[in-house]
């Protein structure tokens, strides 16, 4: 592999505490190194910003519900499809881009690692087929556990060890990365058209509450010592007043300590916090509770969050929270797709238009930004749009602009039809904090990598780490004349390296890279009871045989990278 020297850039690396110093970054054989030979190819980064490749902690970019979105929204691609260009395959789609476009768009913005946030286990092969066809970026997928019948039955009897053994089996069978929980219990209730809107609503038939599921899965996660923590989309998403349910959910983690060998400090990751920070009792008195949520998280160090910023676009919502999507189609009357997955989960899809002319949408916009600006520790709060739910990930540069420039926020507030309502129902107008580039690197690189247990591998520029590097046409020494320049700079990188291969040059794709699929291989003590239970459920209730479920052919994961965990002790 070739050697590179990225010279004279302004480096921002929270892993090493580098805050914009002029430094050279050396790359050899896929890794960041101290030194390279004189034959190294030099990339001139003078007057440019250099950061590690960014890490996406939560997006819906591969798998059955994403593809259902593509299938049922031809209008999302109307006039937006792009031709083959050199080594770049054709692409298309605004809110649900094709797999090729997904890989290219992330890479062009300097993202080199991304997490698919919800993998229905029965469909894992589909998720991996799409991941295979998403070029450049390393990816991993989180199987969903919060409504899984095995989990519900084991946790009803507080059987943490069995839950953990089952989780380990499923992670291996699906080549999954982390324990994801979506509307715990509520999605199973949706099997009967019902829901669990609080952490204490009993799950029909299973005689368990969401709170018990959440606690049990945190404990199973720490029992196994997985790289990432339990990653949760709580109950009651998107409803006025839901922040109370969110606080109830967060409190479940109280007092639980992380146990892992990956440098992770949290036991719960709360995702798309924006959707869970609503006050009010209806859409009329709808208001921000970002302060209440961030106050709690600021005080409790064993929690990390991501934002879920609304980008004010026409987009496509999709979630394993089946009852929520049914609720949403009742509000906007747009086309509704749903898939209930036997014994495991469900998913729904509905298009949505976040119009700047609708006060609720504008307040949602404000809440997402408030969360990012009210969190004191940028290492515990990460920028997402919950792609494509609050907006497409391709809008990250715009979100960054709003976070880095109070002037840009003000311009947007002034453009809202219901400006006064936005100002009265949120405190966005009173916040003048502007994120620094260092904080940005924390929120998009070092922070998410640490939360995912990947801090030894990515999210930083320390020698020995993977050579994932992004160079932006942004000179931190010059004052920003126009906030639009921020958006422009973060939209298209001057250069991007993924594992030491240059994949982007002057905003164009120059290599399809050698993308990897990350997964977690946990060794647990032999557990004959769990294996018997699995066997029985396949014989009686699944529509597929166990052998076919477990047979994940190597060709679906052509370039795997297994993170090994030993939980036998």
């Amino acid at each position: 592999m070739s050697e590179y020297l990225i010279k004279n850039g302004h480096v921002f690396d929270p892993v090493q505490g580098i805050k914009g110093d002029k430094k050279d970054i050396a790359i050899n054989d896929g890794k960041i190194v101290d030194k390279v030979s004189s034959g190294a190819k030099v990339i001139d980064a003078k007057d440019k910003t250099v950061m590690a490749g960014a890490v996406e902690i939560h997006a819906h970019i591969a798998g059955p519900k994403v593809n259902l979105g593509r299938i049922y929204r031809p209008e999302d691609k109307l006039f937006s499809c792009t031709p083959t260009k050199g080594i770049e395959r054709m692409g298309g789609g605004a809110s649900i881009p094709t797999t090729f476009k997904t890989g290219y768009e992330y890479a062009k913005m300097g993202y080199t690692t991304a997490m698919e946030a919800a993998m229905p286990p029965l469909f894992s092969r589909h998720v991996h087929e799409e991941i295979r066809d998403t070029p450049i970026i390393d990816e991993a997928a989180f199987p969903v556990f919060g409504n899984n019948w095995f989990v519900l039955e084991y946790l009803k009897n507080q059987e943490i060890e069995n839950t953990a053994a089952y989780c380990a089996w499923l992670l291996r069978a699906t080549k999954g990365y982390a324990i994801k929980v979506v509307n715990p219990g509520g999605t199973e209730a949706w099997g009967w058209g019902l829901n669990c809107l609080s952490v204490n609503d009993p799950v029909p038939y299973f005689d368990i509450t969401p709170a018990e599921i959440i606690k049990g899965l945190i404990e199973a996660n720490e029992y196994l010592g997985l790289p990432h923590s339990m990653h949760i989309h709580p109950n009651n998403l998107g409803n006025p007043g839901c922040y109370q349910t969110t606080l109830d959910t967060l409190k479940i983690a109280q007092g639980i300590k992380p146990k892992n060998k990956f440098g992770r400090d949290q036991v719960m990751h709360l995702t798309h916090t924006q959707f869970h920070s609503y006050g009010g009792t209806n859409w009329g008195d709808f208001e921000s509770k970002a302060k209440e949520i961030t106050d709690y998280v600021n005080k409790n160090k064993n929690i990390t969050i991501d934002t879920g910023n609304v980008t004010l676009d026409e987009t496509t919502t999709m979630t394993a929270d089946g009852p929520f999507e049914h609720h949403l189609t009742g509000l906007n009357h747009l086309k509704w797709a749903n898939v209930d997955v036997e014994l495991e989960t469900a998913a729904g899809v509905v298009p949505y238009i976040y119009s700047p002319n609708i006060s609720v949408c504008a307040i949602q916009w404000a809440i997402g930004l408030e969360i990012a600006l009210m969190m004191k520790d940028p290492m515990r709060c990460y920028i997402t749009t919950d792609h494509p739910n609050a907006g497409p990930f391709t809008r990250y540069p715009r979100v960054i602009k709003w976070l880095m420039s109070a002037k840009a926020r003000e311009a947007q507030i002034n453009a809202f039809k219901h400006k006064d309502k936005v100002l009265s129902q949120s405190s966005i107008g009173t916040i003048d904090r502007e994120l620094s580039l260092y904080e940005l690197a924390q929120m998009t690189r070092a922070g998410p990598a640490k939360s995912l247990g990947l801090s030894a591998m990515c999210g930083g520029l320390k020698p020995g780490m993977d050579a994932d590097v992004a160079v932006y046409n942004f000179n931190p020494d010059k004052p920003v004349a126009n906030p639009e320049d921020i958006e422009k700079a973060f939209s298209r990188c001057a250069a991007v390296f993924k594992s030491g291969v240059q994949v982007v040059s002057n905003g164009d794709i120059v290599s399809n890279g050698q993308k990897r699929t990350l997964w977690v291989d946990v060794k647990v003590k032999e557990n004959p009871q769990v294996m018997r239970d699995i066997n029985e459920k396949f014989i009686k209730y699944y529509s597929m045989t166990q052998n076919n479920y477990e047979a994940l052919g190597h060709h679906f994961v052509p370039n795997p990278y297994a993170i090994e965990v030993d939980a036998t002790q």
Partner: protein
Amino acid sequence: MTKTITDVICPFCGTLCDDLEVVVSDDGKHLLEVYNSCVIGTEKFLHSQAKDRITRPRLRQDDGSWKEISYDEAVEYSAQMLAKAKKPMMFGWSSTNCEAQSVGNEIAEISKACCDNTAATCHGTSLIAVQDIGLPSCTLGEIKNRADRIIFWGCNPAHAHPRHMSRYSIFPRGFFTGKGQMSRKLIVVDPRVTDTAKMADVHLQVEQGKDYELLDALRVAFKGEWLPDVVAGIPSEKIREAADLMKSGRFGIIFFGMGVTQSLGKNHNIDEAIAVTKDLNEYTKFSIMPMRGHYNVTGSGEVFAWQFGFPYSVDLTRGFARYNPGDTSTIDLLIRGELDAMFTIGSDPGAHFPISAVKPIANMPSVCVDPHLTPTSGVSKLHVPVAFNGVECGGNCYRMDNVPIDCRKVVEPPEGMLTDEQFLIKVRDRLKQLKGVA
């Protein structure tokens, strides 16, 4: 000695049964017996062993005779045809695996072709409806475990999906359905008293071509509004009874087939059936699912969608993807005279297209990749026989409920025969040379 291979997937229909057992000879070259499959699946496995099978490509000569040629020559003909054509169609893909489909898509991209699958003649109109109104659905195991209302609308699984009823829909005992058939009510809507209709608790013998009206009437009945005395040949009283039966279940499912996708109204029939399902979710839990025909037509739609953004009828001629059935759909393109080359794989348009859409194929450069002799091979210039997918090679497939299952190879193909994927890779590589792309 013989070997028994378990958990074998049946590559016939969209039910994609995965519990077959196949007995093969010790050397793995001969398939001897098939267990657990339906009569069609059994025939599919056994026919692969036919002694009179064509094993080498054949090119049609001016006098109408076939000349046996090598695979390399077949690759050359195919690549040249695709390189020269202004608007080639690459059609089929439903009886092959996703790996082959993926290579095919690359070929279509390089040659700027149109590509389409057999949804063109089965559930293409369902896809249009899904695009218009959505699709509340579920996996087949959900039906087995929960459903107490089963509706077959314009489909006849007793004939087209023989094991569907025993594996998933009518008979199985699931988690919440311990009494199996006893816990379920079956409604069949069909203009004929089909073998499926004979098992029904309620058979609505709808006037052919009036499904849209009947579905609308059900929606009106849910709301308790005024109805004419008779709709689509069914008395309104009977419609109201059926509506109540649907509403009173705990979990219902509508399976629909070509009786609605191909009759007057087409996509709108499905659209209205989906609206019925959506309405029923105000009262109880209801899902709806197309009874997909070919075992991997669903997979083709999935691969098209994640690579190009559309599930079928994709036009890449301008270098980027476009989609609009009526314009970009194979049968319209053929009948309107828009195409100048035809590449068929994993399907038989010669047998299943209206004859006016087959005639143009006979008059243009054409390649048919198919293990069988078919009407399509009978009108094509080049016939390329290949290994039987799902019998002689594995690969991923998607069931009618979009669940992916990896097919298994159970026997070796005859000596020297290529699989779909192997043949396509050769065509792709040759095409790249011709087009000068890396």
